[in-house]
Each structure stands twice: as C-alpha cells, then as structure tokens.
C-alpha cells in the first residue's frame, strides 16, 4: 500500500515546531497515516551515519534498519558509541555525514512518534519538581508552545505513573526517590509521550532487581502493542533473556539482527576486541550447553 503524505506534519515548519499538537482523536496506539507495523517504511533507517566529537569520530559508517515491533538491545564495550548512536538518531548530536529516517521521513517531522529515556545522571535531581511534574513533561511536545497541561494531560500522566507502579510517589520531590524509582519516573515520562518508537539510554543502570524486572515487563508490553524499543544495555548476561534483536556496536556496526543468530560468541569477540571476559565466555558456553534460544 502506498502511504498518503502526512499533511499535518508536512505543513509545519519543521525545525522550530515542537511536536505537532496531536488531534484529539488520534490517540496513543493509533499509528499515523501510512504507518503500519507490518508494511511501509521501517521504524528506523540509518544510512551511512558518521558522528564526530571535536573531529574525533565516534561512530563510523553506520547502516542500520530496525524492524517494527522489536525489543532491540544496543550492546558494546564502554566508549563504543552506544549512547551516541541514540543521540545521533534523535538529533542531539550533529551528524558528520549520513541520514536518519523514522518511518521513512526525517526525524524533525516525526518527533511525535518518538519517546526518549535519557541517562539518569544527565539531570539535576535536586530540581524543584515532583515525580508527577516530570512525567507531565512527556506531554509537552504534544501541547506545543505556551499551552499549559490540562486535565487530559494530567490524566495521562497519572495513568502512566500507575503503569510503572509509582502512583504513590506522584507528589514526591524527585530527590526523595531511590535510583530505581527515578528510573521509573523517566520511563513514565517517555510513556506519556505516546510514541511508536522508544529510545532508552541505560534504563537498568543503578536500579534494583525489582525495578529491573518491572522495566523488562513494561518493555515487553510495549513490544506486544507493536512499539519498537531500542535499549542501550550493559549486561551481556541478560541480553538473550531481554531482547529479541541486537545491535552490536564498537564505533562501527559489528552486527545487527535477531538475537538468536546475531548474539554469537564470535560476533561478541569482534565487538569487544577479544576483551570479552572469561566469565562472560563461560556464561555464554553454559547457555549454549543448556540449549537456550
């Protein structure tokens, strides 16, 4: 099927307009015109992307297509450019070359389809806002300039807080939350964006086991409703268990594809340049011995 041009996003001046004010009828879950989880352009398509900080390249020649409805782990050693990949796709760091398309269009036109969970350390948690305030920020993009969040946005914020099990903490100043709770708040804020694609930068770092489990379940729920989720991930041990698709990265794209065929010891050794610890290798061997997927 041929996608009709999305008139609303076409008529908006792209650069200076935050996410369009969504029409009331087109709510979360509903795909934009021309976007279906099975046909049409893929959620994320990266061509020939190179990113450099102060002239030092961090990512080289990345070519990547992410299929819809997948839970994708971005895996690689420290300094491999995992976060940078996300930030480059989101336009937070300039591309030295290449281009990024979200459902077949430039990101600037598709922001309303994208939710983002930054690393927890990037903000000042002493900031005078409550958990609820932070979650409400997820709806700001849809609101556009000058408008204040209304009953509808507040209700959505309450819903997603409930979804991450944080309703009881809505009125807490965010410093008074534990690391895991702060991460849940960030997650809820992304959910409030009502997106089709979610980017999460190390959502499991510094959280307790219970929160990690809760987050994983939430990610699986998102996938089951057709969303695409990209997660920067550190723990090799849990990759197989959490993700059905992986992107192995070490400044270059080492491999990308279904976890079962891509997350191999060979690929991992290429990614980690032989730095894969014995422990990791042993864990891998054990898994294969158990006949894991």
């Amino acid at each position, binding site marked *: 099927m041929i996608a009709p041009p999305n008139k609303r996003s076409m008529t908006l001046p792209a650069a200076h307009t935050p996410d369009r004010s969504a029409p009331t009828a087109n709510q979360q879950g509903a795909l934009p015109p021309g976007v279906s989880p099975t046909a049409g352009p893929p959620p994320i398509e990266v061509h020939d992307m190179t990113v450099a900080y102060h002239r030092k390249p961090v990512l080289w020649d990345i070519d990547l297509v992410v299929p819809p409805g997948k839970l994708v782990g971005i895996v690689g050693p420290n300094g491999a450019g995992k976060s940078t990949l996300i930030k480059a796709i989101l*336009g*937070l760091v300039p591309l030295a070359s290449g281009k990024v398309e979200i459902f077949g269009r430039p990101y600037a036109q598709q922001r309303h389809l994208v939710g983002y969970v930054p690393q927890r350390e990037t903000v000042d948690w002493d900031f*005078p*806002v*409550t958990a609820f305030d932070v979650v409400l920020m997820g709806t700001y993009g849809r609101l556009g300039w000058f408008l204040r969040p209304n009953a509808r946005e507040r209700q959505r914020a309450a819903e997603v807080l409930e979804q991450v099990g944080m309703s009881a903490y809505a009125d807490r100043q965010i410093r008074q939350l534990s690391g895991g709770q702060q991460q849940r708040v960030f997650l809820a804020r992304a959910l409030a964006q009502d997106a089709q694609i979610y980017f999460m930068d190390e959502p499991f770092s510094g959280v307790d086991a219970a929160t990690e489990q809760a987050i994983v379940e939430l990610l699986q729920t998102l996938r089951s409703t057709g969303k695409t989720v990209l997660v920067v991930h550190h723990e090799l041990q849990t990759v197989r268990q959490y993700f059905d698709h992986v992107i192995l990265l070490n400044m270059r794209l080492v491999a990308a594809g279904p976890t079962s065929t891509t997350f191999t010891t060979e690929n991992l050794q290429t990614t980690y340049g032989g730095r894969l610890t014995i422990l990791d290798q042993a864990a891998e061997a054990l898994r294969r011995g158990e006949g894991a997927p």
Partner: protein
Amino acid sequence: MSGLTLTVLAGSALLGCASGVVGAFSILRRRALMGDLLSHAALPGICLAFLYAAGERDYHTLLAGAFLTGVLGVALVTFVCRWTRTKEDAAIGIVLSTFFGGGIVLSAIIQKLPGGRVAGLERYIYGQAANMSRGDVQTIAIVSVAAILVVLLLYKEFKLFSFDAGFARAQGWPTLALDLTMMSVLSLVAVVGVKTVGVLLVPALLIIPGATARFWTNRLGLMLFLAAVIGACMGAAGTLISAGLLTDWLGFDPLAFGRNRAPLPTGPIIVLSGTALFLLSLAIAPERGILSRLLALVRLRRRTAQENLYRTLYELSEPRLPELPVVPLPALAAERSWSPRQLSSLLKTADRAGLIARAPDGVRLTPAGLLSAAAITRAHRLWELYLIQGANIATDHVDRDADSIEHLLPPEIVDALAAELARRGRLPGAPAAVPSSPHLLPAQTHPANPQHA
C-alpha cells in the same frame, strides 16, 4: 514619606521582583555566575556609550551599551569554552575581570575628559538607588514587567529546558532559542539593575532571592513566586532602611556610629537585607534548614539509644524468658559502655513510657516493654541476617545511612525481610518470632560482621 522615596521604593521593589524570578532559573541551571559576568561586562559598555553619545548621559543609551557588552561577554565565554579546553568557571573569571578592568580604565579616561567629572560613572559601579528618577523607575518597570511576562508565558518551556535540555531537544524544542531568550531576559534585568545597586551587587540581587526561596519549597512555581516576593522585600527593605525608616520607628538611629549622620547607601542595604532573609531561611526552613536537620538528627540519636536499651535488656533477659528477670544496672551499662548519666536518662524515659520497671538492684522489662523490645530485637536480627546473607532485596526502601537503618525499618519491610529469609530457608524459627542472634549461628564464621553498635 516623600514622593521621591516612594518612587525609589517602587523601583527597587519591582527590580527585586524581576531579578528574583529570572535569577531563580539561572540558579537552577547552575549558571548563577552568569549574573556576575553580565553585570561586570556591562561596565565598559556604559563607558563606551557615554563616549559615543559625547557626554550625553542619556540613560537609555547607557543601558544599550551595557546590554551589548554584557551579551558580548556571555558570547565570549561560550566561545572560549567551546573552542578551547578552558572550563566554564575559569572562562567566566577571565572574561569578567577583563571587561571590568577595561571598564575601569575607560571610566578613568572619561573622568579626565572636559566635562567628565559630571559623568558620575562611579554610580554604576556602586549603584545609587537614592538618585533614581521617575524616568529610571519607568524603565525599570517596563523591563521588569516584560521579564516577568516572558517567564510566565514560557514557564512550561523554561521548566522543561532547565530540568532536562536533552529531552527538550529530542522533543523538538529549539533549545538554543530558549537559552538565548532566557539569557536576554537575564541580561536586561541585570543591566537595568546596575544603576540601582551597582555592577558589584547586581549578582546578589539575582541570586539571593532564588537561593532563599529554594529553602522553602520543592515546587518550581512556588519557588519563582517566593523569589519574586523575597526580591521585592529586599528592594523595599533596603530602600526604607537607607531612607531612615528604622530611625523613624525607633526614634533614634541604630546604625549611626558616633555623630555620623550620612545616609546609608541603598544598594548595599538591599543586598544585606537579602542576606538576612537568606540566613533566616538557612536556619529555620523546614526540611532544608539547619535547625530542622539538627532536630531530626537529635531525634534519631535519641530513638536509636532508646532502642538499643530495649534490645540490650531483651538480650540480657533472653536466657530466662518468658520470665522477666531483673537486670542489674552495672551489667546493663557494661554491655553498651553507657556512662551512668546516659543510662539513667535512658532509663528515666523508658520508665515514663511504662516499658521498664525499677527494682532495688536493677530494672526489668514490663510485659509491654517485652513486646516492643522483642519487636526491636527481631527487626535488628532480621536485618543482620539479611546483611550477612548478602543483600538482594530492593535496596529501594533502604537507601538511608546504614548505621541508622535498622531503627527506621517500617513493620512491613521487617515482615518482608522475614518472609524473604524464610523463603531461602535461612530463618530459624517461625517468621513472626524473634530469631536467635545470628552471631550464634554457624554462619557467623563469615568475616563480614554487620554488628556496628
């Protein structure tokens, strides 16, 4: 009160109000030093504008000059940070003193020019609120109201951008434009403030209200409102005090030393009034204030000492339970190295609570005392067991100081601990009973001894 004082009063209060609001955002973005930079970098602009206008002391020309060099200073800092490895605070220090030095040299040159003596440029260094004219107040009013309106209009955008600029950008907000808007508003307010409180004191006017307001609230909206009120109070109090209000009230001048009757300078008094409010907040604010923190600490200490008493009594009585034996005082004191005074004060509290009973040669737990002593001991031992076996429960609920934690465990967490330990088969006895001390278990050969008391 004369009409002139009223004018000055209105001007200073409005200025304080606007500075408080825009300054609060710069504090939250950890860019409080920007105010310093702006005001110091404004000085050469004022001098240049004076030279350019050939000695005309048109207020607005001078303001324009101040604004331009102020913004130039900010731009320079940004440039230096981006293109060299200089850190922002160092860059601010360099640019600020360079501009201020340049300004002083320029003003010295101006003083020597024919007619330069009347320029009165030093007013801009030290400020001269008392000489505010109606026109000055009008300018202040326009700028202040405009600044507050911008913040009100862009409240949501500023809030998001100040909290999480990366997220704001990903959501599509033009963060550079927001940053520039915020900086321009700050610059305008700073520049207008220069004539009132002076280059050297403008930063205080920008920083003190916001920093003071932060003590009282965890909500951004309320913080901005309080900063506005505090700023206005600073301005008003400074003006009134320097206009002799205190003297009128008291019937004598408390600030006149000897026979010196010179009026006090308004700018510094404005700042000092702010400092007084800041110190007051620092001391008495709930939650963030020093007193309330001290109080919480003292309460915790007391509670800890009390609980330690019950636990020690329980442990000393334990071999003979359910009988409630008399525990001799020396034995009790020896367990915890309590001084006789400490012990007697602890016992007095416990006695009043009806948890212990005195005996001729010591004390014993009352039945009620046994109940709470058992609960405390149970919590303590469960916590110890838990630590010994390697913590693996949600640290969520227990991110307090490790030393005080067992005294703060709410009952539901204690029960969760018991359930968890029972599940792992590590809990001797029934989950609701007091477990025997882990120090008597074989597990105690473990080197990590959590005993800290």
